[in-house]
């Protein structure tokens, strides 16, 4: 059984199904288009940003939006627009990495729990349920407190905060699929658990998890911004949307634009993620499968 070809086939089927249809609707086009644009901006940040994000110019500090600083400058005279652009890079990469880790770990745990059941399942689910009712910000805070601030710890903190979600979802899918007759048939034909899990259960369970993962990236961005706001995320001079708003608080009365624009960036991004995610759900027609989470 060549796992790589199965993965390729799954991804291919997924791509053909969802992306086409999700982009078809008006909302899907706008939201999806914005997201694609955002990713491009993040990737090509050094070429797009008008100024060096770390370049200070104290004589031009706290300048309101205008020319040449389209979004104004912060208290060190750094160009807000450039910092927002580079901030996109930080936020997106941290969130995406974190969610990827979370998904991988969560899916493994959830699949194992759902498939093997019994005491193992109950133990896992008890711990998972507990973390799930805790607000993600608290979990992240505890984690960062233990490890110390920085981008790495932020990434892991976000990953842990959403681990419960993916575990629960995968387990629900696996449990649901286990009861299907075609699985019974495969078992009766003498298939090994690893074969059943990899070849039959996982491909069918993937779709909702991927969509939830996408929505979680949105939450992850907000979480990263919040952690940054508390000074626990990216350390200066690395720009992150949250950190920008943190240092901007002191200047709230003087130069509110330092806070407003990064916040708008976060809000618009997460809204786009949510809207596109909804379209994906509709395109994949899996709304009912998500009820359990």
């Amino acid at each position, binding site marked *: 059984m060549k796992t790589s070809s199965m993965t390729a086939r799954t991804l291919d089927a997924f791509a053909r199904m969802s992306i086409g249809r999700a982009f078809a609707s008006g909302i899907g086009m706008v939201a999806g288009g914005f997201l694609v644009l955002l990713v491009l901006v993040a990737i090509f940040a050094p070429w797009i940003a008008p100024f060096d994000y770390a370049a200070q110019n104290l004589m031009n500090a706290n300048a309101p939006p205008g020319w040449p600083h389209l979004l104004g400058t912060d208290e060190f005279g750094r160009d807000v627009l450039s910092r927002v652009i580079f901030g996109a890079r930080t936020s997106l990469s941290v969130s995406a990495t974190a969610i990827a880790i979370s998904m991988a770990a969560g899916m493994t745990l959830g699949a194992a729990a759902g498939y093997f059941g019994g005491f193992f399942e109950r133990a896992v689910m*008890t711990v998972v349920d507990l973390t799930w009712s*805790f*607000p993600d910000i*608290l979990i992240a805070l505890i984690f960062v*407190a233990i490890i110390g601030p920085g981008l790495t710890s932020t990434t892991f903190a976000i990953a842990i905060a959403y681990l419960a979600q993916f575990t629960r979802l995968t387990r629900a899918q696996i449990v649901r699929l286990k009861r299907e007759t075609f699985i019974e048939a495969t078992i009766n034909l003498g298939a090994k658990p690893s074969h059943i899990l990899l070849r039959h259960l996982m491909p069918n369970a993937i779709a909702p998890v991927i969509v939830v993962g996408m929505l979680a990236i949105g939450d992850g961005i907000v979480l990263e911004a*919040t952690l940054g706001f508390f000074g626990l995320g990216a350390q200066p001079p690395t720009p992150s949307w949250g950190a920008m708003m943190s240092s901007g608080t002191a200047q*709230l009365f003087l130069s509110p634009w330092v*806070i*407003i624009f990064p916040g708008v960036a976060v*809000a618009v991004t997460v809204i786009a993620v949510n809207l596109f995610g909804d379209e994906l759900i509709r395109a994949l027609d899996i709304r009912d499968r998500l009820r359990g989470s």
Partner: protein
Amino acid sequence: MILRYTAQRLLMLIPVSFSTSVVIFMIVYLLPGDPIDNLLRVGSSPEDRAELVAQYGLDRSLVVQYFVWIGNMFQGEFGQAIVLRRPVADLIAQNLPYSLTLGGLAFLFSSTVGMALGTLSAMVRNPVLDRFVRGFILLGSTVPGFWLALLLILFFSVNLGWFPVSGARGWESLVLPVLTIGFGGVALVARVTRVALLDVQREDFVTLLHAKGLSSGAILFRHLMPHALLPVVTILALRIGWILGGAVTVEFVFGRPGLGSLLIRALGQRDYPVVQACLLMLALAVMLGTLIGDVAQAAMDPRIREKKS
């Protein structure tokens, strides 16, 4: 019936509480450095250290230490705050009322306004209203709390001067914080109410209710709302943790005292006894919330009471 269900649920909480307390206990040990040093203030004397060791049995095995710790907790003895040099219990007693007020008000605000909005959107067939509510729900679920707080401060406190920027004096200082937390809460409740009402309207028994000659108002309040309340109560109970989480950020931004700001400050100052105590309180609140949610659900839906979980 309900009592038995409650008892069942309480029993199930015991293993969960146990594991949570173990995790919280272990935090001190997961930190870099000598755990005992983590509990001491910088510049403590060897006598202080010996005293601490004796009081908490820190030279005994982990298991014993855990039970000593837990035993102390039950007696209300939470230890000494490292930085402020006061009993942690005092700190908690001081800050808890603020958190409860904020959380309670936010809860009330979210549930009432949220349900009203959700009901309006589901029952009044106005496409403009519907679009507005859906947009509001989207915004409420995605806008970062602290940013909203800052915007509100900017607009209402700085520009208009209606409300104080920070602090906790008088009811005026509660308005913006409650609004900040409430924004997300209202969005959540509105969404759940709206979906629940739309779903239940399509059920068969509603046709029969109309056929009996009941007025739309009577049907809405006596039959539809109970069905909508179910998921609302569930989600609110489960999200008590979320409301608390929102309170943490909000307390910080608005400079209000409370468990949240206490926790964040303690984290920054590495004041671990305080951290542990706060986390324990929050965990307790979350579990209590889940319990209340479960019991309320069973009280409202007779079908749940029969199921042996």
